[in-house]
């Protein structure tokens, strides 16, 4: 009886999660009347606006990842090594983006960095792009922080650092040649999660008026019939690809195998 109940629960969950996806996939293939085709996907891929917004978001995602890694890895490293008492505070700070709605954050940015402020970032496209990247980094912070923190917890940080120092390495060398390579899998996990967040993000990009993929998705949803379904399927595929890459990175990381 218990076994049947377990299988029934799993069956329900599968239907609940996958049925809408299957329905959406099927709908995205029905652009040509009376038969299945990839017309909706062709239409999307051929749309210059899609190419421009998707390219912009991919670029922003990459910049956000680099920015996030440069900020988060040294911070977590230093807190774990020298300021372990600050860890609960850091946990709290990095959870804030999950609690504060993005719209509040972006209005805060606009208020702080508008054209009449002391740092008028919104006055230029480049400045706004920088602001958007910072916003994305904040949104991804809970995931990046936890991924890196877990990675650093898995190595003997203090001893490895001291070993590298005794061999002549300065702080930057320690971070770049010893710490980062040993938490690369964790950093990659954080990076792929960041990528998945940035690609579909709407609020920041829309309110800062940047040509990102999120606003394009919303625009397409309101103006086209089959293409939004195709876009949703593509976005899902991209997100899942990111998740699979995390798994692959873990699997092919030679030195993270258990010692004998």
């Amino acid at each position, binding site marked *: 009886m218990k076994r049947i109940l377990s299988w029934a629960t799993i069956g329900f969950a599968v239907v609940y999660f996958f049925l809408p996806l299957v329905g959406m996939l099927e709908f995205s293939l029905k652009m040509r009347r009376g038969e299945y085709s990839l017309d909706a996907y062709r239409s999307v891929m051929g749309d210059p606006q899609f190419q421009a917004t998707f390219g912009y978001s991919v670029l922003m995602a990459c910049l956000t990842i680099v920015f996030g890694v440069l900020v988060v890895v040294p911070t977590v490293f230093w807190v774990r090594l020298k300021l372990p008492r600050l860890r609960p505070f850091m946990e709290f700070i990095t959870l804030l983006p999950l609690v504060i709605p993005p719209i509040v954050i972006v209005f805060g940015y606009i208020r702080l960095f508008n054209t009449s402020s002391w740092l008028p970032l919104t006055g230029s496209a480049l400045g706004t792009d920088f602001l958007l990247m910072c916003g994305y980094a904040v949104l991804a912070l809970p995931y990046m922080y936890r991924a890196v923190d877990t990675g650093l917890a898995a190595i003997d940080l203090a001893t490895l650092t001291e070993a590298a120092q005794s061999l002549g390495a300065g702080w930057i060398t320690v971070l770049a040649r010893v710490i980062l390579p040993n938490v690369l899998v964790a950093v990659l996990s954080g990076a792929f999660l960041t990528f998945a967040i940035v690609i579909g993000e709407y609020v920041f990009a829309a309110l800062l008026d940047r040509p990102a993929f999120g606003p394009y998705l919303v625009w397409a949803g309101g103006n086209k019939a089959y293409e939004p379904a195709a876009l949703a399927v593509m976005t899902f595929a991209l997100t899942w690809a990111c998740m699979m890459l995390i798994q692959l990175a873990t699997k092919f990381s030679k*030195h993270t195998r258990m010692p004998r």
Partner: protein
Amino acid sequence: MAYLDLSGLQKSFGANQVVKSFDLGVAKGEFVSLLGPSGCGKTTVLRMVAGFETPTAGAIRIDGQDVTGQRPNQRNIGMVFQAYALFPNLTVAQNVGFGLKIAGVSAKETADRVAEMLALIGLPEMGARYPFQLSGGQQQRVALARALAPRPRVLLLDEPLSALDAKIRVSLRSEIRDIQRKLGITTIFVTHDQEEALSMSDRVVVMNGGRADQVGAPFEIYNHPATRFVAQFVGTLNTLDAVVTNAARGEVTVQGQPLQLGQAIAAGQGATVGLALRPEVVHLEADTALISRGDFALAARIASVDFLGAVIRVKAQTAAGVIALDLFNRPDAPPPPVGAEMALRFRGQDVIVLG
């Protein structure tokens, strides 16, 4: 002047003073062990030499140069850690060559030095392996090669054998000592294992409560302990109470029997002093008539017999308390049975008077 000179070193963590005025001079090529119980400050002294802790007071000089304010990466000091601390993402060869790469040594020179170091530690074929593919003993040898590769001025060993099993520990300690002798590198070795300290070192520093209680050669430390702590910490010790009958001539009585010590005693007549005996200087005699003949001997009943292989540790109950003694194993002479009535004999010259 000593090659490595530690003068007046102190270290406090908040209100807790861990190292209290520590002085030590180490000659070039000397192997010195810091021995002591947990919390005695030995690791803190080592970490101050390495540069990982800043002394609250005092100075550290290497070859006459004051390095107290230098960062760890500026000191050119090699260090081997208890937990190996090999970089998991690098191969054995890359680990050994790490310090050379940082120093900007050419690839050819690095490869030659790495090969030399791997040959020195007896792992010439292991260069392409990752640390997780090595045993604990092999990892620690690689850690030693890595520390030695950049030709450091001083080598620091922080309990490098503690994480290894007993047999490897014994073989690796002689390997470490051989390599140290071959390279003539000035070495400080931190351990809480007295056997390691006594067997490997030119000199041993016995630490207690943040101070060096005694500094000396292993023979001197073991046989002539300067303080009660050193006597009790290094080796096994039996303690007896004795009453002084003639302090200048070193005459005492133990359980009413006169005993002539090999030294004068700094105590008044009639005072009670503590005597200490190593287990190996106590002899077991089956002939209890010794006692009545007037030789110094204590009547004893065998309380326990522990067969340890080459040595048999016997504990005997006497009127002065339980006394442990060691017998060499002889296949033709089985140890005495528990409960046997026997006599314990020792010479006054072998007795340590506790301060």
